[in-house]
């Protein structure tokens, strides 16, 4: 299925999404990768307030190239999500509804998606120039000193992603690969 969706995400939306569905996202999403996640979760562990309210929101695992004069943002494709596995469940438990990245998630993340009604979405890795065009505004909202790893608020229009992990345990990487796996004589 293909859906045009807007952020923030609701339980009703998440309930209708299944692995393999294609989404065009519009609205505000937040960027965050390794260093920002480490800081956010340190705050969660201390019971302190986060610089962004993650409830209902979508985090995009990306560290863009610097914007040239006149550009909104530089090249901005997804980074490998597995490095955020150690942190994501805690943010999902706080109400985070979606994550955009590339590559497989571990069982703890998949369980947290089920438990919290959330989704993991894949954007095309290595298509940073293409994806950049769907970002219409960008501003740093936290941890500016982290440079490419700062938390940015992005406004996106029809940002293309595919549902990799849904709240029912579906996994597009596993299902897609199974379909084309074949034996070879060796």
């Amino acid at each position, binding site marked *: 299925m293909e859906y045009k969706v807007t952020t923030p995400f609701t339980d009703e939306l998440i309930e209708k999404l299944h692995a393999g569905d294609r989404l065009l996202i519009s609205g505000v999403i937040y960027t965050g990768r390794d*260093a920002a996640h480490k800081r956010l979760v340190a705050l969660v562990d201390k019971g302190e307030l986060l610089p962004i309210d993650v409830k209902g929101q979508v985090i995009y695992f*990306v*560290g*863009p*190239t*610097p*914007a*040239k004069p006149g*550009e909104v943002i*530089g*090249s*901005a*494709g997804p*980074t*490998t999500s*597995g490095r955020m596995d150690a942190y994501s469940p805690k943010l999902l438990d706080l109400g985070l509804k979606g994550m955009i990245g*590339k*590559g*497989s998630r571990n069982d703890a993340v998949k369980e947290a998606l089920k438990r919290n009604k959330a989704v993991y979405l*894949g954007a*095309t*890795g*290595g*298509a*940073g*120039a*293409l994806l*950049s*065009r769907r970002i219409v505004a960008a501003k740093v909202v936290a941890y500016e000193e*982290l*440079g*490419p790893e700062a938390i940015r608020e992005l406004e996106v229009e029809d940002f293309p992603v*595919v549902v990799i992990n849904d709240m029912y345990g579906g996994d*597009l*990487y596993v*299902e*897609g*690969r*199974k*379909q*084309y*796996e*074949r*034996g*070879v004589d*060796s």
Partner: protein
Amino acid sequence: MRELDVARITEAVAKLAVDACTYLGDDVVAFFEKAAESEESETGKDILGQLLENARLARDTNMPLCQDTGLAVVFLEIGQDVHLVGGDLEAAVNEGVRKGYGEGYLRKSAVADPIGARVNTGDNTPAMLHTRIVPGEKVKIVVAPKGGGAENMSAIGMLKPSQGRQGAIDFIVDTVSKAGPNPCPPIIVGVGLGGTFEKAAYMAKHSLTREVGSTNPDPRLAQLEDEIEKRCNALGIGPAGLGGITSVIDVFIEELPAHIASMPVAVNVQCHSARHKEAVL
């Protein structure tokens, strides 16, 4: 003896870094076009179409192909009849990286104290520099920005000689299989066979500068490359890991004799944004 000012190396490194990150090689583009025809998965075809569009956009708008503009891997082949003047060669290469990544608006992805504070060095230095002295009076420079996602899926195995050819193939295919969707497939599989621990890894990295679609001059290795490619494509990983018959762009092997006790096999994974540019001074 020919004199060459290292400032020219700085200039070349800076330009090659920006060009490599912006202009995808014709060999890789040609592969995407061919694979978009032959791929059986509709989703896979769509992804390959996106990669072609991305390459076109990057070229036309001077935007990096990928936000991960990598650590700057630099190979220098220095003619033994060249006298480098005007400063420290390594400093000149780093200055080229600083200039290219700064003026070219490339991402700075190098962090110092890697197991501790991980503080960004701010200018993407140091270059990952490999030098070789060769006959002649030229200097060949290859700049090959290397992203972290694919690098992280690489592996080296100090295998037992008893594991033989089949054991080596299994190790390589298993590395690709475990990497799955993470390193941005379709990938190039760079392999170093034999040598010592560090030579195997170096060969695997260096092999990635070969042209996609080129045939290994050693028929024995060419046959091995084909065999590994077939096995990898049969894994079903597909473009972006969403399933399909295009998991691998190419397999490149370099080889050296090994110690009587050793059988090193290094696998360096290269994402589909296979970036390298070269110049001869």
